């Protein structure tokens, strides 16, 4: 599985960078995130209840941030384990660049693999589901860092 995307976020690069490293912001932006804990500067542990169509499974997610180049880019490594649903591993390269009007252009590229039952029966849907999750995440992230959006 491989995908890439680009989002324009109307906030300064430093703000976007800070938010990308803030477990509270990340937890708010991941649909179904039940807990998010910071274990070290560069490591997070999360529990996520994923819902895609008929599938509703809880996953333990271990996130590690590497190749940190603030406020430009980092690499996010994720290891995902489901109790019974299977497992996955992915690497996301996230890069920030200045856009016009003080906005920030965020681009990402994800390479991932899934195994176990999820791969057996979900193969036909994994790419679409991953794309939807990325879109949902970044649109929530957009709201979370947009200074014109009132905090809810």
């Amino acid at each position, binding site marked *: 599985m491989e995908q890439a995307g680009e989002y324009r976020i109307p906030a300064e690069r430093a703000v976007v960078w800070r938010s990308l490293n803030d477990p509270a912001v990340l937890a708010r932006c991941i649909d179904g995130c039940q807990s998010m804990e910071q274990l070290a500067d560069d490591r997070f542990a999360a529990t996520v209840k994923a819902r895609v169509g008929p599938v*509703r499974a809880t996953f333990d997610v271990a996130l590690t941030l590497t190749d940190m180049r603030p406020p430009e880019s980092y690499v996010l490594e994720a290891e995902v384990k489901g109790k019974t649903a299977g497992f996955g591993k992915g690497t996301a390269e996230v890069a920030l660049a200045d856009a016009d009007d003080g906005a920030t252009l965020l681009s990402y590229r994800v390479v991932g693999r899934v195994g176990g*039952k999820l791969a057996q*029966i979900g193969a036909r849907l994994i790419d679409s589901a991953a794309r*939807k999750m990325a879109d949902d995440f970044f649109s929530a992230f957009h709201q979370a860092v947009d200074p014109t959006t009132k905090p809810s």
Partner: protein
Amino acid sequence: MDAFNYHKPSSLAEAVALHRDAEDPAYLSGGHTLLPTMTQRLATPSDLIDLEGLTELTGIAAEGRTLSIGAFTRHAEVAASAEVRSTVPALADLAEGIGDAQVRNRGTIGGSLANSDPSADYPAAALALNAVIRTDRRQIAADDYFRGLFETALEEDEIITRIDFAIPSCAAYEKFPNPASRYATVGVMVADFNGTVRVGVTGAGPCACRAPAFEAALSARVDPAALDDAELPAIDFNSDLHASAEYRAHLVRVMAQRATARLVEAS
């Protein structure tokens, strides 16, 4: 499969109340998506609420220019129905081409639409036949119903009761089936309402959609060649191990042209 509570309500109101009070409930219709997911433990609902036997969800009736099908009607019943055959034969053909005999004997039209699998057949018909999705609390036009990958306008505890299809002068459905599952890699229904043509597309993107430029071209002239240069619908095309996005885009036009050719033959 994990343990769960099984309920068989005798009214819609009771079904909704059971759903409201359960911890992690799921409605059970034909079960041909939900049960395999549960046996794989990719879903572990605490309570299954079986909708079989609710009279509001059964029966097929054609009245005026509307064909009304109860949500619990199984695919095989739609395929074999004299009312469907005589009013919208393309819909009976579509039902006959879903999955295999086991799926057709258990799966239901309401279950299919509630699930809104991106490759399911019925969503293309719901859009092409300008369907109205009736639920326990309201009616939803098909055009407002499909929202995204497995996402519909339905609320969490809402139950589809009937689907009212507008009866066209003529319609045809063509799909490029996955040879193993017979899911639509791409499926297109073309329906002619006295010269106004509607086109429903499934399998191509996150959810079913219409093809506006195809509809305009066919409303001007019902001819496969009219689609040669018509703009494809603006779809974020699916890509998976069965078909790339480019291939699906290609199939949308080809399936639409084949369906149009059958429409021409039939009229």
